[in-house]
């Protein structure tokens, strides 16, 4: 056989093998993490783990009910603050963002997107926790919302930009005013994409620990008061994992499974929403 052809074939084989191994490594990390979590934490997952609050150190048993509820409240509040601002900003950027203001907003969003989450935590501590005089779930939610807004703004913008220009023209030619075209036709067509972006954003902030360290702080008791310190799953994991007791480590693994499951659930929901969108676009 022609030597050049042989060389091509060998090269092709080597490269295909290489990318195969690399993609296996990428998947492997997820498998290892999940496997490790299940092995070390699954045995601690029982009914009381979900329904009971933590017990004092040294005692066995107890659960993380307060942390699960706390994560729900903090993330929910963050969504309440972050979703309207993020999606609104994204719509603005896509529809009217061609000028200087649009450029500025986009630049700021990109910088914010790259800001380490602990810096956002410190910011929330300086502007909310210090003036209020105490840690609170609200401060934690604000910190998470700040993380969420730039992400949402950019994904919403992308999704809205994907809506074909011809649809916008069709609506305008029918006598739709500009604002109604934006909301009724463009935003609605992009809705599945926006929902997906939101779910990914929520999944991303649900597991954050650093911004909550000096804002929501954590709480050993069950609390639903948003102006008081509140426990969250990520904080609970952090505290248990860095603590000295074996029982705590066991609980940390279990809490990690719950948190991971939550994030996975959101990602799957996002996938589903994407499928809906492509289904609708066909």
């Amino acid at each position, binding site marked *: 056989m022609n030597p050049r052809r042989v060389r091509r074939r060998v090269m092709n084989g080597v490269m295909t093998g290489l990318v195969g191994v690399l993609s296996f490594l990428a998947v492997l990390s997820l498998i290892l993490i999940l496997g490790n979590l299940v092995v070390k934490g699954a045995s601690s997952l029982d009914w009381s783990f979900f329904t009971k609050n933590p017990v004092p150190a040294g005692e066995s048993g107890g659960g993380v009910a307060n942390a699960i509820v706390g994560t729900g409240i903090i993330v929910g509040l963050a969504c309440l603050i972050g979703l309207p601002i993020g999606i609104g900003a994204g719509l603005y950027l896509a529809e009217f963002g061609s000028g200087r203001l649009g450029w500025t907003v986009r630049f700021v969003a990109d910088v914010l997107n790259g800001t380490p989450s602990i810096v956002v935590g410190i910011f929330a501590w300086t502007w909310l926790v210090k003036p209020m005089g105490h840690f609170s779930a609200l401060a934690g939610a604000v910190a998470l919302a700040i993380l969420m807004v730039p992400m949402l703004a950019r994904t919403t913008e992308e999704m809205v930009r994907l809506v074909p220009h011809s649809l916008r*023209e*069709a609506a*305008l*030619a029918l*006598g739709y*005013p500009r604002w109604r075209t934006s909301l009724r036709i463009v935003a609605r067509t992009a*809705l599945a994409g926006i929902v997906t972006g939101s779910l990914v954003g929520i999944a991303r902030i649900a597991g954050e620990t650093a911004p909550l360290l000096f804002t929501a702080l954590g709480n050993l008791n069950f609390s639903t008061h948003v102006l008081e310190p509140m426990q969250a799953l990520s904080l609970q994991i952090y505290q248990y994992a860095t603590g000295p007791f074996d029982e705590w480590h066991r609980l940390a693994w279990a809490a990690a499974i719950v948190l991971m499951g939550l994030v996975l659930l959101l990602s799957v929901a996002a996938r589903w929403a994407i499928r809906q969108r492509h289904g609708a676009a066909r």
Partner: protein
Amino acid sequence: MAPPADARLQLEAVRLTALYGRRAVVKDVSIIFPAHTVTAVIGPSGCGKSTFLRCLNRMHELSEGGWVTGTVLLDGDDIYADAVDPVQLRRRVGMVFQRPTPFPTMSIYDNVAAGLRVNGHRSRADVDAAVERALRRAALWDEVRDRLRRSALALSGGQQQRLCIARALAPEPEVLLLDEPTASLDPAGTQRIEELCHELKTNYTIVIVTHNLQQAARVSDYTAFFYVGDLVEVGRTEALFTTPTQERTEAYITGRFG
């Protein structure tokens, strides 16, 4: 050209120039579209015929850098007058685009009703009746009557285009602008749309931009030939195709360029 004496002047462009920034793409065009006629606008690609059409419902000014000089009269009223709201105007001058543009999130029914609902609140029965009337006029009713609530995207390309025509007809415009409406359709779909043009002109004034000379000859009463932004010639379709007065027109329709 000499329109029949009984034809009410429906739409008229007067010394219309359309520009993108400082570049004129339609130059000083004056033309009359008599009521209840079909006028075909022909010419090679990039000759400004689509831009011209978009001036007739003030869509051109929505394009980046788009503006016009001169004017367009609809029933004698200047549509570029300060008092005219372009949004209201577009409800009187409907438009169908080159590619079907059904709203993907809406059902067949909602697509047709879209232009009615934006006109303000109407009773359920009114909307039902108007949707059926529009779909019948667009020759689509029999094919979709059993699935009005289904997604408009389930229709074939030709059906989607007729749906867009129905959507444009539903608010009862006076003028219908068709921008190469059959460009993305197969011959059967094309034939349906052409037949429609014949039927619709009893109720509307139609301006159709087309690349297809046979189509222009088949559907239109009048034909206007555009070349690089100029209106070269306009006249009764048979006359323009058999005895053009301008050399450029003859060269184009005999296929020597364009």
